[in-house]
Structures are given as C-alpha cells and as structure tokens.
C-alpha cells in the first residue's frame, strides 16, 4: 500500500518537474547555508579552544580576579598573587605540586627585526618535569631547557617562519630578548596553537633576574595526586587562599579553576555567536518551507478533480491526506539531502580556500554526524509541516464538488 503511495507521489512530482525542482532548490539553499555555517563555526571553535591545548584533568589553575579579557593572565588584576603562596599550597593534602607561573612581556630581536611578545617561565627542580608533561613539550630540533641553563631560550615553532624573522630562527642562533642576548637551545614541535607556536620559554631564575621580580606571580598551576579528589582539593585551596588573602566566603578576589572550566566561558561565547549566525541562515529555511506550502496548495487546487475521482472510487479522507503529506515531506527531504551534500562541499571548500589564501591553520571545517542527521530530519519536518494544511484541505474536499470543479 505504502509503495503505491510513493509511486503515485513520485509520478505527480515528475509531471510537474520544473515546479518540484524550484521548490527543492529553496530547501537545499537553506540547508546548504546552515550546514556550511555550522561546519565552519564548529571548526573555528575547536581551533580556537585548541589554542589553549594544555589541558590535563588533574590540573588546577589559580589566578587573581580582574578584567580577564584585558591582557595576559595575571596582568589586569587588582591584587596579584604572592609568590609565597605556592609553597603553602604544595602542603595542602592531595596536592602533588604547586608551581609559580611567570609571564613577562618584552621584545625579541633577531637580525635587526623586532617583535613584541611574552616569555613564560620554566620552573627549576622536580617541577620542571611536571610542567613539561603538563604542557606536553617536545622539541622539533635541539633540546628542552635543563637545570642551570643561564640565558638560554626554548622557542615555539612559529619562530622558524622566515616571513617573520629573516631566514627563521633555529637552534644555535642568538636572539636579543629585551636587549639581552640569549642562546636558542631548541625549537618546539609545531602545535598549530598560537600560544605554543609563539612561546618563549626561559628558566625561572634567568627570567626573574633579567625581567625583575616584584614578588607576584601571574598564575599558579596545581597538579593533584589523584584526579578523583580534584573537587575536594579545590575547596581546600580556596579555604587556604581566603585565609591568606583575608577575604570571606563569597567575596573571593581569586579563582581556582580546572583549565576546562576556564575554557567553557570562551567556548560558550563562540557558541552564542555561531548560533546567532545560524539562526539568520535558518530564515532561508523558513522561506523554503513557505515555498513547499505554496507548491502544495497549488497541487491541491490543480488536482481537485483527481481528488474527486479518488474519493468517488472509495479513497478515504486519511488516504488523500497521506498522499499529499508524503509528497511535501519528500520535497523537503530530497531538498535536505542535496542541501547537506552541497553544504559539506561548501564548508570544506571554503575552509581549504581560506587556509590557502590566508595561510592560517585556524580555519577548519568540522561537521559532526549529529548535525547532518539533524538537518535531514529538520528538512523532512519542514516539508511535513508545510504540507499539513494543504493536505488536510485536500482530504476534506467533497467528492461531488471536487468532480465538478473547473479551474
């Protein structure tokens, strides 16, 4: 029975080929727009949040409160963290290590070219290994920093780019960092992350000696012994900090976050922007839906006589309804399938073109299966909803009137 319906519906669609095509074009333009924007949006989101890709599940990051968006971590704060805190935090039960993290901004000069950036500290002693693991540091050439390296620097992979510094910087070169000469001991692997590919790592002692030490740190990284106890450890650290900084519960002027938590707010902002764009693109889907509705109304009027004949030879209201309902659903779904294919081509094509033109790895397309299935179902539903009223109208026609109907 259902098969007969489909044959009937397909024949109808074929006999009005041009109209069926135009109707489906409406849907597939909309779906293609939505799919490609979702693809580019989520690709960009993944790329941006991946910039901070030093996420361990057993790490907490400690910062003083401030205007977080205004500068480097720990710079736009009112009351910076003291460098004496780490030693106290290290004694909190469950903490394996608490490490002071320093960021100092300055200039880096090589072959008469100068860029402004910031240097990160590498801690001494047993903490060095922990930070290396935490940041997943591996070298592409040369070696990592080691104990006692004075005025030696480990650079991110971006510095090898000859477009930024003439010839690129490599192991064995000398660079001027804020006017002081440093030897490059190694270059990190390419990570595709802005922060790591532009990293300047210097041993803590050297960094504090050359850039000055005002007794404050930008952040404190805490590694917990067992990641299952991370919540409890976080509470204990907060308790200690409240006492040290003399603030009451609810009035904290610092934050203790897992790195994932810190990323969530950035990710949700990006998601909101993405969503707004998709909503605007979805308007075209609504317009496509209206197109289907229009086509179905026309089909009902055109086929009034057929409806009369079907009914007079025994077709029930429900059957007439289903015929038109299936027809509009099919228009939506076929439009959706073509739209998804076009959207995927568009998303990956645009991303590839963007990468080639701008030379930025940041532009990536990523379409999850969820969104593909979702858009297919959604386009089918748009078709069904658009067909609902016309199909109902058709099913309610009186056979006698319908047979008599003149266009």
């Amino acid at each position: 029975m259902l098969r007969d319906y489909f044959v009937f519906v397909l024949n109808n669609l074929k006999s009005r080929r041009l109209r069926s095509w135009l109707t489906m074009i409406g849907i597939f333009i909309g779906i293609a727009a939505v799919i490609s924007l979702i693809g580019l949006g989520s690709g960009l989101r993944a790329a941006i949040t991946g910039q901070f890709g030093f996420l361990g599940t057993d790490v907490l990051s400690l910062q003083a409160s401030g205007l977080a968006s205004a500068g480097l971590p720990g710079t736009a704060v009112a009351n910076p963290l003291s460098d004496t805190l780490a030693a106290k935090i290290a004694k909190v039960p469950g903490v394996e290590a608490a490490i002071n993290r320093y960021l100092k901004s300055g200039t880096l000069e090589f072959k008469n070219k100068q860029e402004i950036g910031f240097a990160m500290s590498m801690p001494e002693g047993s903490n060095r290994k922990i930070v290396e693991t935490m940041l997943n540091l591996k070298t592409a050439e040369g070696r990592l920093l080691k104990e006692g390296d004075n005025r030696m620097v480990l650079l991110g992979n971006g510095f090898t780019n000859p477009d930024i510094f003439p010839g690129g910087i490599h192991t064995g070169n000398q660079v001027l960092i804020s006017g002081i000469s440093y030897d490059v001991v190694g270059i990190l692997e390419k990570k595709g992350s802005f922060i790591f590919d532009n990293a300047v790592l210097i041993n803590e002692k050297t960094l504090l000696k050359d850039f000055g030490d005002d007794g404050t740190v930008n952040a404190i990284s805490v590694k917990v012994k067992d990641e299952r106890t991370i919540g409890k450890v976080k509470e204990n650290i907060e308790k200690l900090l409240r006492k040290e900084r003399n603030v009451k519960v609810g009035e904290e002027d610092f934050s203790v976050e897992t790195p994932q938590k810190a990323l969530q707010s950035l990710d949700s902002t990006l998601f909101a922007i993405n969503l707004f764009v998709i909503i605007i693109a979805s308007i075209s889907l609504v317009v496509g839906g209206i197109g289907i509705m229009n086509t179905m109304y026309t089909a009902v009027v055109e086929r009034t006589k057929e409806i009369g004949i079907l009914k007079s030879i025994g077709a029930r209201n429900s059957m007439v309804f289903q015929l038109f309902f299936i027809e509009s659903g099919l228009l939506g779904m076929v439009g959706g399938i073509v739209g998804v294919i076009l959207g995927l081509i568009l998303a990956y094509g645009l991303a590839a073109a963007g990468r080639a033109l701008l030379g930025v790895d940041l532009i990536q397309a990523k379409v999850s299966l969820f969104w593909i299935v979702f858009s297919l179902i959604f386009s089918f539903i748009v078709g069904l909803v658009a067909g609902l009223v016309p199909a109902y109208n058709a099913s309610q026609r009186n056979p006698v009137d319908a047979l008599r109907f003149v266009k």
Partner: protein
Amino acid sequence: MNMDEIKYSLNNLIHRRMRSFLTVLSILIGVMAIFAITSFGLGIKNYVDVLAQEAGTDKLYIEAKGIGAPGTDNTFFISKDEVDFVSKINGVKEISGLYTKPAEIRFGKERKYYFLSGLDISKIDFITEVFNSKIMKGRQLKKDEMGKVTLGYLYQFDNKIFKKAVKIGDKVEINENQLEVVGFYEEVGNPSDDGNIYITDKQMESVFPEIKNKFGVVMVSAQKGVDPEALADRIKEKLRKYKNEEKGKEDFFVQTFADAFATFNTIINVLNGILGLIALISVVVASVNIMNTMYTAVLERTQEIGIMKSIGAQKADIIFIFIFESGFLGMLGGIVGVIIGFIISKTGGLIAAASGFTFLRPIFPWYLIVGCILFAFSVGAIAGIFPAVQASKLKPVDALRYE
C-alpha cells in the same frame, strides 16, 4: 502598458489570494532581516561618526605597545620626560598623559573590576573634550585632590554595577583605598566605559606607586591649521629619535582619532556585510519561490494568454503583465518587510539600551527604506523574467487548445 494590464495583474493576484500571500510572506522575511541588520549597522556607524566628530578631528594619541589593553602591561610605557618632550614639538596644542590600570572597586561586600584612570586636573577641559563625557551629577575632581573619586554613569543605578546604587558622598574602596564619591559622568553608551573609575593623578600615584610617571596613553591635540596626520608622523619620528630607537623597532605608536575610528568602522562594516550576506540567502530562496509562483501562474493562465494574443496582445504586453505581477509581489513583500523590520529593530534597540548598550541604536534613513523596497521590487521583477518570456512565446493556437 496601460491601466487595463495593471488591473488585470492585480485581479489575478487577488484571485489567487493564498498563493500571493505565501509568496509575499517569503520575500518579506528576507527583507525584514536585511532591514533590521542594516539599521543596526548604520546606527553603530552613526554613533562612531558622532563620537569622532565630537572628540574632534584634531586629536591624536600616543600609546605604548604591549600585550593587552593599555595599563595591563607596565613593560612598555611613555614616561613623563617623553610627554614633556612631545609637548614642545611644533604643532602640538595640548597634551596630557593618562594613567590607566585595571582596578578592583568594592562597595559594601561586592567586588567588581573596571578600568581606573588618573587624571591631570589642570588639563581637565582638554581631557573632557577627548573623553566626550561630562560630569552630570556632583562635581569634577580638584587639582591633586586626595580621597575623592568620580564614577561612570552606570554606578548610579541599582543592579547595574552593584546591587545597590552608589550615591554622592558614599564611600567605595579602590584597591584597598577608601575614597568618597563626589561625581558621576554622563552616559557614554557602552557598559565598559560607563563603568570607568576616575581619580586624580596624584591619588593614582599613591594607589600604584610603581607607575609614577609611566603613562599607558598620551592624548594630544593639534594646533589650528596643523594636519593631525602630519603631526602624528612628526611625533613618531621625533619621539623615536628621543627614545633612541631604530626605525621599525618603536615600542609605541601614534594614531589620529580619525584613523582609529576609521579602523573601527571598517570592522563594523565587514561584520555587517557578512550578516547581511547570510540574510540575503533567504531573499535568493524567496526569489525562487516567486519564480515558481509565476511559472504556475503562466501554466494556469495558458488559455487566457491564448485569448489575449488572438485578440491582438503583443509579446511586450504579455511580458509586462507577468513582470508587473511578480514585481508587485516583491514590492508588497518589501513594504511589509520594512514595516516589520522597523518594529523589530526598534524593540531590539530598546532592549539593548536597557542593558547599557545605548550605542546599539538603530537608525532608519530614507535611503535604507526606499532601498529595501526597491530591492524587493527588483528581486520580484527579475524572478518574473523567465516565466514572463515563456508566456510571451506561447503560440496563440496552441495556448487556446491547452487543457
């Protein structure tokens, strides 16, 4: 082309009421979206232009390079000596270094973080002109006054910055310093600037001793008749030599206000353009719908076309009838779209203003309204071309025979 043909077209549209309605609906949605987006875009552009004009085209600023907003990074700064040096450069009318730092402000038990500026009150007229914002309540700070603070517009209201509104005479704590509020600034229009905190430069030096004589930003105005662009170049060159820095390695930059605003406007235009393009997709879909409607109309009226042709209608008459019909559908969609878009923008603007984003105020110049309606008309007319030409090519004999 006469009234009869126009009447005939309109009658047909009324006759197929449902289909006409749906077609108009599909185009009006897109026009509405474009109208709303553009009205906001133009509004922001207008806000920036007014700001640029009021701040004056004779202004420029020197800013220390560095990472993040001015004041967060003390590695690079403009020193007091350098400001004195620049003040003597030919063409400089007024100059004032601005201390700026992110700070914590406490009121009762709440803590918030905003930018704190230390002002040289002897230059207050100049600074007021640059900020383009005056004290609206209370009074301005006095030269070297200690223990007093003036606040941005939003502090005066409940639940904007703090749960409770701050009043003149109240004490707030800024980085552990108890200060008395003596005045409030008028509204600038964005929550960040309207949350600013202002103290005297002397007070600033006592709150942050480490930044004494180190400015993040220096504001400059050009003398009458001096081209600010040329002055900017001159300052850049002379200050570079004074600081003994090589060309291309300056740790500061000089920009005119006009340039800074132009950059901002470019960003707004690009964003607006992208959103507009995405909204345009729905107009493309709508034009496909119109084309569909018109093809159907041609098909349905094949016999009528045959009759018209057999009693002497020319090809041009038939083309005119159908293009007029589809263009009219488009224009109707444009008019209704503009009306609904206007309502949406107005409402959106009011909501934004209530949340402190007064700069998100849509404007509706006549060219936007006329442009949207004309655009909708052209989309309709263009979508009607193919069906109309098809109709005009029908042979009267075949058309009369058509069932």
